[in-house]
């Protein structure tokens, strides 16, 4: 985090990059800024300087401006992180250059990646956290950028967003009582800094899919994997992409190349530990 002294108060700014989207967060509330720095620190890029989010605190309620225009008003302080994170996620997906953006978790070992495309609520983040905790590199818990030419993956190592439904799986990652995290965290989503799962865990840029697994949490179900055909894999990848139109007439060609680059499976699970073991077993098979 970098600090600068303003005319009337200490102004602190955090400069970040989310894929091709550069942004700066400024906040005159030192404790909230410290928390924002903790949550967004894994995206820090001292050279970033484009869009500016400015958070102003009005007696417990915040106003957030983006590039000088009011983006949202009367936000509770615990909702500030959620607002900025959501906005950054959306902006990162539309920022150039055109890429295949997958709504997917991603983990890696060296230059080999496991891509976990799935809809919201499927257990994608939980499985990603579990795999990073098991020693794999972290690429993203919800947005992977795939270069349509060489199929390389650019990491987007945002903080982990653990929704209420998955928080019981990771009690040690919750905000500790009496901390800034507790004060500025809304109960519906923990934004867990990457280093709190495992230090120095961000995966390598330029890795490529070696395994595609579409996870789906189903309460009470056994752990089952079903191989997907290339066509089914294309469908899963495409249904979990928010950028297909940007690829123009390369949509099907790009999806097919990704689908053919790695074996693909549908994974149904209710036991996170068993699901993690199954992914690790399949990853070991293909490496």
């Amino acid at each position: 985090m970098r600090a600068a002294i303003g005319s009337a108060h200490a102004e602190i700014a955090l400069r970040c990059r989310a894929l091709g989207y550069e942004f700066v967060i400024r906040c005159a509330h030192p404790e909230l800024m410290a928390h924002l720095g903790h949550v967004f620190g894994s995206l820090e890029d001292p050279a970033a300087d484009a869009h500016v989010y400015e958070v102003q605190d009005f007696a417990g309620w915040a106003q957030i401006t983006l590039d000088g225009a009011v983006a949202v008003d009367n936000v509770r302080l615990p909702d500030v992180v959620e607002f900025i994170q959501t906005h950054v996620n959306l902006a990162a997906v539309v920022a150039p250059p055109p890429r295949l953006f997958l709504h997917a978790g991603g983990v890696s070992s060296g230059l080999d990646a496991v891509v976990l495309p799935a809809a919201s609520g499927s257990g994608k983040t939980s499985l990603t956290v579990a795999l990073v905790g098991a020693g794999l590199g972290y690429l993203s818990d919800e947005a992977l950028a795939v270069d349509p030419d060489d199929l390389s993956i650019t990491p987007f190592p945002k903080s982990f967003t653990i929704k209420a439904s998955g928080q019981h799986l990771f009690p040690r990652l919750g905000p500790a009582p009496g901390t800034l995290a507790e004060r500025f965290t809304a109960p519906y989503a923990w934004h867990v800094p990457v280093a709190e799962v495992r230090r120095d865990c961000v995966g390598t840029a330029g890795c490529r899919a070696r395994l595609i697994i579409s996870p789906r949490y189903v309460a009470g179900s056994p752990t089952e994997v079903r191989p997907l055909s290339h066509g089914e894999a294309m469908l899963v990848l495409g249904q979990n992409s928010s950028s297909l139109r940007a690829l123009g007439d390369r949509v099907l060609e790009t999806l097919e190349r990704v689908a053919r680059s790695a074996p693909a499976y549908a994974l149904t699970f209710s036991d996170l530990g068993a699901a993690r073991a199954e992914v690790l077993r399949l990853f070991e098979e293909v490496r």
Partner: protein
Amino acid sequence: MTGPRRRDGVASREVDGDVVLWDGDALHLLDPRAAAVWLLLDGRRSGPDVCRVLAQRFAADAAQLEADVAGLLAWFAERGLLADDGQYGDSLPK
């Protein structure tokens, strides 16, 4: 034009016997039998023509085949994948 026709702008790609369609908004996966029907929808063949061609390729009960083709044409139409020529309605298998 006398029969159902694939809408212009729907991209398709054959992948191991399946066909994946991209209509500019959504993807659709066709299994080999649905893909065979899709590839025959050139606007020159009527629904019954499509059934006759398929009957030569697949060992299937004629009534079942007609029902399958009718169902698939309706499925394609519901998803906006067919050209809106207004020409093929009468050509659907009854």
